[in-house]
């Protein structure tokens, strides 16, 4: 665990104690420290700003209501992001809405030449679309690991699954994304490298 992470964890613990003691400034500081990332995670899962705001709000309410039971055994952020992910998927289930775009049959070995084309800014919307199609099994792992830049161990703690399972899900999620992105590029007429 990094020193920065330790420091942030210690800071959060202090802020929670102050919040529980009725310090309004501690509330603002906790919100400021985490609202951005909670919102980002929510928006990437829900893909709707208002729904993401609702999920962010629900996440903070849930966590801060139970802050008195936080014992600091794991990072506050781990708990917070876990609640955020669960809240988002609960909202999706309640609405009967799941990412419905079909995933590609990724049987073929990935094409190395395609990987370079991921770097194009033009592919950003496609990448967001592809992310949205990832099944619940893979999506959160890839989101937390690759988009939010969290260590795999933290991802495992947030998702409450073994580290090995996280690795497997991230690996397979990336593979699906690569294959899906290839299909999207083909469908959109995006020129292949050798055609450009």
């Amino acid at each position, binding site marked *: 665990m990094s020193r920065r992470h330790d420091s942030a964890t210690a800071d959060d613990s202090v802020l929670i104690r102050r919040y529980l003691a009725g310090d309004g400034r501690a*509330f603002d500081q906790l919100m400021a420290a985490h*609202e951005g990332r909670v919102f980002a995670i929510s928006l990437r899962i829900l893909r709707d700003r208002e729904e993401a705001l609702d999920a962010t709000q629900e996440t903070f309410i849930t966590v801060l209501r139970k802050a008195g039971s936080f014992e600091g055994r794991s990072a506050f952020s781990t708990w917070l992001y876990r609640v955020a992910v669960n809240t988002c998927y609960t909202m999706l289930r309640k609405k009967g809405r799941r990412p419905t775009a079909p995933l590609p049959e990724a049987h073929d070995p990935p094409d190395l030449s395609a990987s370079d084309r991921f770097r194009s800014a033009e592919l950003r919307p496609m990448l967001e679309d592809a992310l949205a199609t990832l099944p619940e099994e893979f999506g959160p792992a*890839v989101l937390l690991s690759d988009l939010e830049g969290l260590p795999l161990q933290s991802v495992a703690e947030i998702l409450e699954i073994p580290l090995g399972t996280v690795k497997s899900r991230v*690996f397979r999620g990336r593979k699906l994304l690569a294959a899906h992105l290839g299909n999207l590029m083909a469908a959109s007429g995006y020129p292949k490298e050798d055609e450009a």
Partner: protein
Amino acid sequence: MSDERIPIDQLLDLVEGNLPEEEAARLDATLDEGDRRELAVQAAVRSVLGQLPGPELSDDERQRLRAAVRAELRVEEADPAPSAGRQERRSWLVRVLPSAAAAATVVAVIAVAVNLVDTDSGQEASMADVESAVTAQAAAVTAAPAPTPTTTAAMPAESAAAMEAAPAADVEADLADAEMAMEEAMAEAEVAADLAAAEMEAALAEAAEPEVVAEAAAELVQAAADSAEEAALGPGYVAFEVATDRPDETREALEMMEELAAISEMTPVPVTELADRAGEEGLVCWQEAAELAGASGVITWMAPGLVDGVPGEAYLVAPGPDDQPADGVLALFVYPDCRAVALRAVTDE
């Protein structure tokens, strides 16, 4: 497929750079073309995703979000006025003393008393005259925005009597007025310091022997200058110095805290009500204090402040009524983890 031969978690560790150099090299040597292509795609997806700009909350969204959560949890709005730095420097002394005017009076008297006692015990006879003159001039001096005290760690026991000599009318002013006065004093601190020193000097000139006055006045001028400097840092700045390598200073500081606790009007708070009361006061180290007090104990006095320049909190902890109520512990904690930096048993004896 290559990942039938090389476990996925090892391939992923290779992509993430989690493997020791030697092991990574060994694994790399076993990769075939398919493995390398797989690794390249993994690395590419990871890199691209990491570069995707994250969505951000707009200011409006942020305000709406916080307002909604705040309302649901019934969290009160934070005070907007003080900056973090100024809040950190909120004084224990100012919170204890009933008014800014009284605080300024005490500062002046302390400055004189310290000077006289430290320089020559033979001059103690004239000290009463000096104190009397200073106290008589206190209202005039402190009517202007008042400078705040410099460090009080070295305050002698004699100063307790001087504190109690503060005018009754000033003593009755409430804490809110005191802090408001301190806020106003910030803006004109240097002017006020000059004014206070000049008027104090004039008062002393009428009341005591010239040589005593000269020394006392010099001390006051220095104190006023120091006060202006402190006031520029924030209202009511008082450094409470406690250090294990300076036992004498620590002892004096603790004595000062006892005196302050003695003159404060705080009603002892039972430990069972401590959480609520500490919440109202914005204090966070109450759990540590409660442990010292025990289940039936009380907190005689508590306040935030600086401990050797580090923000923290002070508690005067008394055991339960079945024990000896006059005994207690003065406990100082520093943030961020409410570490106890000084504990001292105190009694009324």
